[in-house]
């Protein structure tokens, strides 16, 4: 790993050398954390566009299942029955849509933009480091991710289309090549794409943890770290410890698919009425494997994974709320403790995805208790945020709106989680749209709102300009209203028994009366999808022509605000600032101004108090 470290050649003639650096090394194969972060971010947003379009097709199908979509049939001939003038979606195509929508959104968008994107942009800036610990590894991780994206996108065009076994890739659909059209080449591409993704995420995680542990500037003790930095640290640890289980599972899946083993495949499989026999023609090819084994391995990763999406949003929200409330973060230590508790508990609750898989009810009970326990640290976070906002003179700029949106989604999505966490109600609710409502509010929603909030808040550090506040607010309100409009009614139809992942709900008599709600959801989703145009317009317009940003446009306290917008190469033109206090020193009556930045030395009065009280006061 020594070879990954960067030779000091760049140091000598800094200013000059960089001006002459070739475009390709500076912006394409860059090793600079900020450039890599932006590359991750932009790539993730492109993937979001694809996955969002897939969602629109899903919704059209659910609202008007038997309709003849002439235009769409022309656009996606593989997905619609065109023969005889029909343009009705094929069931296999529907399965492919929700599989790829979920896969891309969860891994390639909402794990990537907040973690790999903002993690790379913010960690060195908030920690006071010149760059990440292993810049070469960092660049490599981006390009590995890029290859993963290419593989996933190209899977739409191979053989019979992309994977169609759900983002959870349960066997036997994912393990038997002949199960559904997408189980053939599409699933192989899915596995390869995921392996690239995981490799890239692991390289990123090594960098995150090493940087945060080893390269923090002087004075930045753990309990002076901003919440975002804490979240990034825990996310990286979760990724490093949870993803390997999925790698192991994927390897076994490859063996089952291509080498005839039976890790996940049980005896007695019959495909299209033909028993799947081994080479001897008498006994079954696969014997005794356990599909449930995959589910355990998948969800051992899967549950920490949803917190990988969630934690950065929680970090961003804490930092943004405080800045715009102009008050110190309420209960900082308990906020850090809550993050640790959530991260720790996330490893022992995966069974709540499998309550109805026939697991021992006592085991189910244990998983239920563990899951409900997560409500405690989650509630701590919510109450601390509310206490932070209480009595504050809030500035409602765009970032603040998104942060409040995250709080709202975290509450409404968390409440349904408590229902689902109990194994008895889950018998009714499992695999219904109630679950879809739940995870879209809490995981997808909070992560998405977190990314939008972080984008508008840290945009100066990305591009040196401000985003347009009016456009930003319009984007927020459209998104907020239609987001609830899309996902809130799903609770209702879910309780009424509307299954998820079904191609045509109206095959079921009892679901027919729910049709108007499904149509309402779809209309809301279409508006939600189109409102994102506001964001893309604002993003590109502001990146090139927005108002130039000052060093610290929001009067915030973190180290990232002590350097230029955007920061120069090496992040600080001079020496790296030292840290003397926590990042949430707002409205302290001992100071004439309303905020004191992390690098400002203690005043004489503070020194006296500190000497009298021992070291604890300013450690927070």
């Amino acid at each position: 790993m020594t070879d990954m470290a960067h030779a000091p050649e760049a140091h000598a003639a800094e200013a000059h050398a960089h001006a002459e650096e070739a475009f390709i090394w500076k912006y394409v194969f860059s090793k600079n954390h900020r450039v890599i972060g932006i590359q991750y971010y932009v790539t993730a947003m492109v993937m979001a566009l694809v996955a969002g379009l897939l969602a629109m097709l899903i919704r059209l199908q659910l609202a008007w299942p038997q309709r003849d979509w002439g235009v769409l049939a022309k656009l996606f001939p593989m997905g619609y029955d065109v023969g005889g003038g029909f343009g009705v979606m094929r069931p296999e195509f529907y399965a492919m849509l929700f599989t790829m929508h979920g896969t891309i959104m969860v891994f390639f968008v909402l794990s990537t933009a907040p973690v790999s994107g903002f993690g790379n942009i913010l960690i060195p800036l908030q920690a006071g480091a010149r760059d990440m610990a292993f810049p070469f590894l960092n660049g490599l991780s981006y390009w590995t991710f890029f290859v993963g994206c290419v593989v996933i996108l190209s899977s739409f065009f191979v053989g019979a289309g992309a994977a169609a076994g759900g983002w959870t890739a349960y066997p036997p659909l994912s393990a038997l090549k002949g199960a559904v059209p997408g189980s053939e080449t599409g699933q192989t591409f899915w596995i390869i794409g995921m392996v690239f993704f995981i490799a890239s995420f692991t390289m990123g995680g090594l960098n995150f943890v090493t940087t945060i542990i080893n390269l923090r500037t002087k004075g930045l003790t753990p309990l002076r770290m901003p919440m975002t930095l804490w979240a990034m640290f825990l996310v990286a640890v979760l990724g490093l410890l949870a993803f390997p289980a999925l790698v192991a599972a994927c390897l076994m899946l490859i063996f089952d698919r291509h080498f005839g083993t039976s890790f996940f495949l049980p005896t007695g499989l019959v495909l299209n009425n033909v028993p799947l026999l081994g080479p001897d023609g008498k006994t079954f090819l696969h014997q005794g494997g356990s599909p449930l084994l995959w589910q355990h391995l998948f969800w051992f990763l899967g549950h920490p994974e949803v917190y990988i999406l969630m934690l950065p949003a929680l970090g961003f929200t804490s930092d943004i709320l405080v800045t715009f409330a102009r008050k110190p973060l309420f209960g900082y230590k308990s906020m850090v403790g809550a993050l640790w508790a959530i991260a720790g508990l996330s490893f022992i609750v995966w069974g709540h995805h499998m309550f109805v898989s026939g697991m021992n009810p006592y085991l189910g009970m244990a998983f239920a208790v563990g899951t409900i326990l997560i409500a405690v640290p989650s509630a701590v976070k919510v109450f601390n945020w509310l206490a932070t906002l209480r009595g504050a003179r809030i500035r409602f700029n765009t970032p603040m709106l998104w942060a409040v949106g995250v709080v709202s989604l975290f509450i409404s999505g968390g409440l349904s989680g408590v229902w689902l966490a109990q194994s008895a109600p889950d018998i009714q609710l499992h695999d219904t749209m109630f679950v879809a409502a739940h995870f879209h509010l809490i995981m997808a929603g909070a992560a998405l709102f977190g990314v939008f909030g972080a984008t508008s808040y840290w945009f100066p550090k990305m591009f040196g300009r401000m985003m347009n506040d009016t456009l930003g607010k319009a984007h927020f309100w459209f998104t907020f209203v239609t987001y609830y409009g899309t996902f809130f009614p799903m609770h209702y139809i879910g309780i009424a028994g509307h299954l998820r992942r079904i191609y045509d709900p109206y095959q079921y008599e009892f679901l027919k009366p729910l049709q108007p709600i499904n149509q309402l959801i779809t209309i809301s989703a279409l508006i939600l999808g189109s409102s994102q145009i506001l964001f893309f317009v604002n993003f590109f317009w502001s990146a090139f022509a927005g108002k130039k940003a000052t060093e610290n446009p929001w009067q915030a306290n973190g180290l990232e605000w002590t350097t230029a917008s955007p920061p120069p190469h090496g992040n600080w033109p001079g020496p790296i600032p030292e840290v003397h206090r926590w990042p949430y020193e707002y409205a302290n009556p001992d100071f004439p101004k309303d905020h004191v930045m992390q690098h400002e030395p203690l005043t004489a009065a503070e020194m006296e108090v500190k000497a009298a009280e021992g070291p604890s006061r300013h450690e927070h």
Partner: protein
Amino acid sequence: MSTEVLRKPSRPGPHRGGEGGGEPGGDGNGRGGPEVFFDPGRFGLWLFLATLSMMFVGFTSAYMVRRLAPDWTPLRPPGLLWINTAVLLLSSATLEAARRRLRGWNPAGVSPWLTATGALGALFVAGQLAAWRVLAARGYFLSGSPHNSFFYMLSGIHGLHLLVGLVWFAVVLVKARRLAYTPGEADGLGMFATYWHFLTGLWIYLLLLLFVL
């Protein structure tokens, strides 16, 4: 972790600050040096090994679950495996001998021992392949029974990691021949040793898991 890992920030290590690591002549981090300081390279390696271990924890749990199925027929390990294991252990021992030479201010004495390490490692890989052939000749194939599957898969994955280790070994050997490692500054060699010993330990663990427990 050895004490070397905990080295204090006296050294302006090549890792620190990375690209553009500070102003010329500075310590790479300007005024505020890092608070805690493990050597980042080593720290990263340990993290990576933790990740790798988690993968094998995943395999272990799968193995324990799968073993309970009624179709489980145990595989009798070929005797060759024990010889291979001895070879691998020996390679770790010669590696330690090489490091001892280095610590004893005898950089020139390093490369013979190091060469032995690589040779034994290669021998181990060859021995593993031979063991596979022995099993195949006896009619035990990958998909024959779950125990076979686990054995072939886990020994294969371990072997692939060892091949990566051999590539790293080649780099280390070239450097050692050029006397690039000095006693106080054994980083490259030390990291390689960490990885190599990890693989030795991992193999012993797999052997116990598959055939003893």
